[in-house]
């Protein structure tokens, strides 16, 4: 049987904005699953005693800690906002093409902004 043609050249495929938002929603989800063990370890350390608490508090007070927190919160906010958009789509809110593109863009813009705001006030 002849093999069918495929087009998987990532550099040439042009996704619409909802598509980009969607694949980032998936990527952020997978990355967060892989980070879960690290997060639980931080929780463990912070509750274990003065040393552990100081370690965690010190990390999040450092520049690298705040940068890491920003990146993590960006992933979390993107995943959360995109998820809310999907729940709304599930009940047929915003399913027309133009509103869907705008809401996808809103998710992508809001996520890093809210993440930066959160790091700023925490």
């Amino acid at each position, binding site marked *: 049987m002849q093999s069918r043609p495929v087009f998987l050249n990532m550099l040439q495929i042009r996704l619409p904005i909802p598509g980009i938002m969607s694949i980032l929603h998936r990527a952020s989800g997978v990355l967060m*699953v892989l980070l879960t063990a690290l997060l639980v370890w931080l929780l*463990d350390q912070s509750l274990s005693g003065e040393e552990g608490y100081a370690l965690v508090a010190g990390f999040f007070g450092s520049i690298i800690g705040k940068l890491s927190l920003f990146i993590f919160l960006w992933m979390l906010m993107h995943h959360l906002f995109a998820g809310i958009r999907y729940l709304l789509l599930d009940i047929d809110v915003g399913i027309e093409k133009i509103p869907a593109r705008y809401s996808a863009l809103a998710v992508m813009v809001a996520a890093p902004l809210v993440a930066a705001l959160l790091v700023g006030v925490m």
Partner: protein
Amino acid sequence: MGRKAQGLWAWALQRITAVYLGIFTLYLLAMFIFSPPTGLVDWQQWAGSPLNSLGIMLFFLATLFHSWIGIRDFLIDYIPMLGIRVTMLSLFAFGLLAIGLWVLKIMIMVML
């Protein structure tokens, strides 16, 4: 669940857990912004209090199910080879269970 609705439990559970995770995340963020822990004892008391400890444990339980369903979708979509996919599903299943038990241990210790 009938044969015609088999994928439905995953679809529904993913969304139900998502709602709880979203709400509890907002609660956590609000706490860290408006009344962050002042030290170890304050943090332990907050985390070990009856309602918060329950909320945290439910949060991780919801995370386990939400993560599992999400990762399963990911593996089904991108890993067509049965042997590798089953292996990875098993690794993630054990990993998530281990994380769940670890959280349970942490929370029991802090509630004592």
